[in-house]
């Protein structure tokens, strides 16, 4: 048992903490789609080879953290720099069975505050190269946009 547990831990570490030499590893193209209304895009907006118009193309690596991505987004969108702005991250990946894309929420960050998901990496969320990233940006002082009924997917 002990051996097994060790092995599992090691494997986990390898998967999650595997350091990436950003000078030797090619960056991946991360297509980020953002919304500023606090909601993620609809599934059908990704259907049939279509993508939302609000696209950011980020070259990054698998060990990129949500905080890092947030900072990149804030560089592009000054309005997102306001303290308290809420970022909700979701991976958009194609469903094998159909021609539909599916969403998977991976974490949230808030500009100006520390969040538990700040250090979350794409790798840890089994992001695969080619997947999209959808970020729902909620301006500060706005009620939680996602009610129980308003789930994006």
């Amino acid at each position, binding site marked *: 048992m002990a051996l097994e547990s060790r092995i599992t831990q090691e494997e986990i570490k390898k998967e999650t903490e595997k350091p990436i030499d950003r000078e030797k590893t*090619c960056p991946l193209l991360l297509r980020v789609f953002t919304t500023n209304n606090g909601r993620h895009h609809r599934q059908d907006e990704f259907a049939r080879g279509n993508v939302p118009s609000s696209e950011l*193309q980020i*070259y990054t690596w698998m060990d990129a953290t949500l905080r890092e991505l947030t900072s990149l987004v804030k560089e592009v969108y000054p309005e997102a720099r306001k303290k308290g702005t809420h970022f909700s991250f979701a991976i958009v990946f194609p469903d094998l069975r159909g021609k539909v894309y*599916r969403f998977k929420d991976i974490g949230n960050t808030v500009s100006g505050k520390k969040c538990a998901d700040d250090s979350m990496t794409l790798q840890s969320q089994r992001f695969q190269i080619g997947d999209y990233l959808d970020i729902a940006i909620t301006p500060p002082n706005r009620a939680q946009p996602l009610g129980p009924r308003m789930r994006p997917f």
Partner: protein
Amino acid sequence: MADEDITLDGQPLQSLRVADLKAALEKRNLSKSGAKNKLIQRLKGALMLENLQKSSTSHSGLQPNSQIGEEMSQNSFIQQYLAKQQELLRHRLEREAQLQEEADESPAMPEEDEDQSDNDTSSCVSDKPNPALAERAGCLRGEGVSHRPDGTTGHQAAPEAPGARMQRATFPQGHKEPPAPSPPRAVASLSVRVLGQPDRQGLPPALSRAQEKEGVAPSETGSAHSVLHLSRSAGVSATVQQDSDEDDDDDDNSGDDEDWGPGPVGARKGNQAPPRPPQMPASSVRSKRKLQPPQHIPPPQPHQNLMQLRHPTPPPSPPPDLFPLPDTPKQSPPDTDDKEGECSGAPPSIPPHTSQGRDSDSRSRSSSPEPPVKRRPGPLSLLVHKMESEEAQTSAGTSESPEGSEKKENEMSDRKAEDAKARDEEELGEKKQAAGKKSTAGDRDLGSSSDPDSQSDSSSKSSSSSPVRVQSRHVRQPKGAELGQDADNETKGTGTEKGHLLKREMSETSEAAVSEGEPRSESSEARQPAPNGEPIDGEGRLEESTTPKAFAARKISLTSSKTPPVDADGGAGDADTGAAAGRKRRWGSSTAVTAKKPSISITTDSLKSLIPDIKIAQEAVVDLHPEELQLSGDEDNKDNGQGDEDDGLKIRRTVTQVVPGDSQENGRGDEEEDAETAESEIPRPPPVEQSKPIPPEKTAEKPDGDPKKASTDDGLVRRSISQQRSGVSITIDDPIRSTRKPSPPRGKLSNIVHVTNLVRPFTVGQLKELLKQTGSMVEDGFWIDKIKSHCYVTYTTTEEAAATRESLHGVKWPQSNPKVLSVDFCEQDELDFHKGLLKPNHAEPQVPQPAPPPSRPPPLMPERDRERDRERERDREHERGAPAVRDLWAERQRQMERRERARGEREWDRDKIREFARPGADKGERRSRSRDRDREREKERRRRERPKSKERKTDKKEKADEPPAKLLDDLFLKTKAAPCIYWLPLTEEQVVQKVLERSERQKERERRLKELQDEQEKVREERKKERLKAREKEDRGGATASSRAADADREKERSRNKDGERRREGERRPGRPPLGRRSRSCSDTRDRRH
């Protein structure tokens, strides 16, 4: 004025030794009994008489005016003043001759003489200061004018030998009080602003003195300078002389004096107060400085008339603008007058120089015990040289200055003795009256000392000016008493006289109260004058670089102020006189004083509110105060050294402090050594102060501690005063001294000074201006931290650095600064470290030190550490006395050093290493010391670590901030497609690996294909077998029909099977080969996710 000018053989009386004083007295057939102060007073009186006799003919317009003309000829005002003063002096001489005769006949005359002397001093002061004042401030001029007339009268009084004696004795006090305050204030404001003023001031006093004592001229010149600078230092003599002048100024300056500091303020106040009463006491004072001149006239009733006559003439013409300068000269003249009076009283025939020499002897004697005197000699000598070179006449001034110093000494330490002397003098005859005056002066001095306390208290309470006024009133009263009465009876006689004066000047104070107040006021006057003189001196010192001496004078004044309470006890006795005076003030003051005080306070407040000029004066005073404080400290030291009984009590406090101060000034090197050596460090009383200055990095910490430490009783009062004053308004550059004595420097004497506890608002330019007052600083040797909390200053010479420390340590600057500046010496390494040129290597030397004796915290400077190590080693040797032990230690140290270096000198390990390195054999003392030192070390360590941690943080930030050296385009290849994709060619290894993988996949694929084929073949074989079986059955059964039907079924089954196989194959074909990685991985990942 005369007091200051009076000198024996060119030395101020105060600076003379008791033996010299006695010798001089012997020559004049005067009694040698009594304390130094009394001796000095006697000598002064004799010298004064001599001078008067000699100078009576030549007095008019001789020295003071000429000096003024030379110095201040720039200003037309000054010239006019000089001319007027000369005229006044002539008149005065004539009057003085008359007055002397009268004085001999009646005590009242002496009073007049005193007033006159006051006037003279004021006039002299006005003449000298006038130029400066006119140049600097017109406001002060009005005061100066009033003083000038007084000064002229004073000159006149000088000629009157008998009266002069009495008057002189009193005069010095009165003069000191009034002139000192006014001139110092004006001077202070001016001096603070302008460096050159002090010199001018010094010159004027010399002139006045010279006028009074023509014969003494050479010595007087020196004395005059000394008076200017020393007047503060000498305090008593200078103050006395100044008082008369200051009386007018006192009203105006009272606030200023208070601003300066409790001690000095009190002294000034006292000085001011005494003159006022004789002239126009409280009412005039209350009315305002402008009124003061007339006030001077009234105090001595008979003399007052004379005075008034005299005053009107002198004051109107020159005084107004020049007053501040005249004040200083006035101060000197009173001293001369006193001396002259004494001289005339005993051996008028004796040449002034001889008398001066005697005075100097007496001074030297008195001075020897009194710290201020000691210090004075230096500044005095400097001043004397200047004066001599400038004016031959100033010799009288020099004599006066010594007298002033003597007076101060007497007042401070020998006041009681003076009283006794005064009694002795009374026995002598003519001198008796003088003695009475002197005793009164001593009482006044005591009272002044006590007054300063009360003043300081009052000042601390709210209005500093109020206390000053009170003192001034008292002073006035005492003067009257002095005139008519002996020391013991002075109060009563003064009461009557005072009553007259009071009636004239102030009906407020009752006679009894007046009488009580008189002694006190006198004492206060004497003390006050000293402070006044001190401030001036301080300015002069700062400018001239005689700062240390000036400090001494200031300190003296402070001591006087401090001592007053002690003196109160000895009201009857010489030693007790001071305490008695303080008590008297309290008691008598309770009735008269209290009543007076409130009124006074009101006046000051009203004045402040009404007159902006007053504020200016206050500011000036404030500036002076720090100097005074320093001087007071020096005085204390001197007093301590002298060990006078009364003064001793007062001084004793100061003495303890003084010793360190002396050690600081003179033995800074010693202190440094001590600091270096753990042993020496321990004994030092003020570790906190040392620590404060030493740690440059911890400015905030040090400042807090310093102010606390610095804030002694006096310091507290001063602080309050300073705060009040600061609240009112002050020039930015005026430092307020909150602590009397600068604590001994912690660092070695060097030309680099570390100033901590700086608090904004102030500009670097202002700070530099302040620092440049005491020396020329190396421009690139100046460093101040970003928040301007502490700075390093490099002076061209160590003397300048020492002077800076003397002048600024324990000083409140800027005035809004809640802390007290801490100034200490530091070394080049420290400065370089802060400049970023050098990084501290503390750990190495410190760690190896097993040093049980490491009393000090690890010094910032590696050199120090090394020195400490050496010292420690020495200590060890001493303790153990065995060289072998030493060797062991050395080895240990080396080892430790190696280890530490290996570790990389972790700061947090230093203590451990030290402890480890320390020999357990260390003695208990060392341990205790080491504990203290350890604490200090810890503090220092923290200080050091802080900046280091900051540095680390900054480094991290820098790293983070560093932009990626290479861009993605440089690192990777990218596709030409719209959204480009970066890619890199596979390396050889990767290629090989890929090939292997691919081959493995191929094999896998083939294997699976084979398996499939095998399975299919098996299935076929089975079918064939079944067919064969079926045919065989049919053949056997013979039934054709049944067989046919069976065949049909079999065929159907076959077809079905074939279809099934085809379907399977069809499904497989479109999909990727089963071994395809991609499809598998994709499905796997998806499965995992979902």
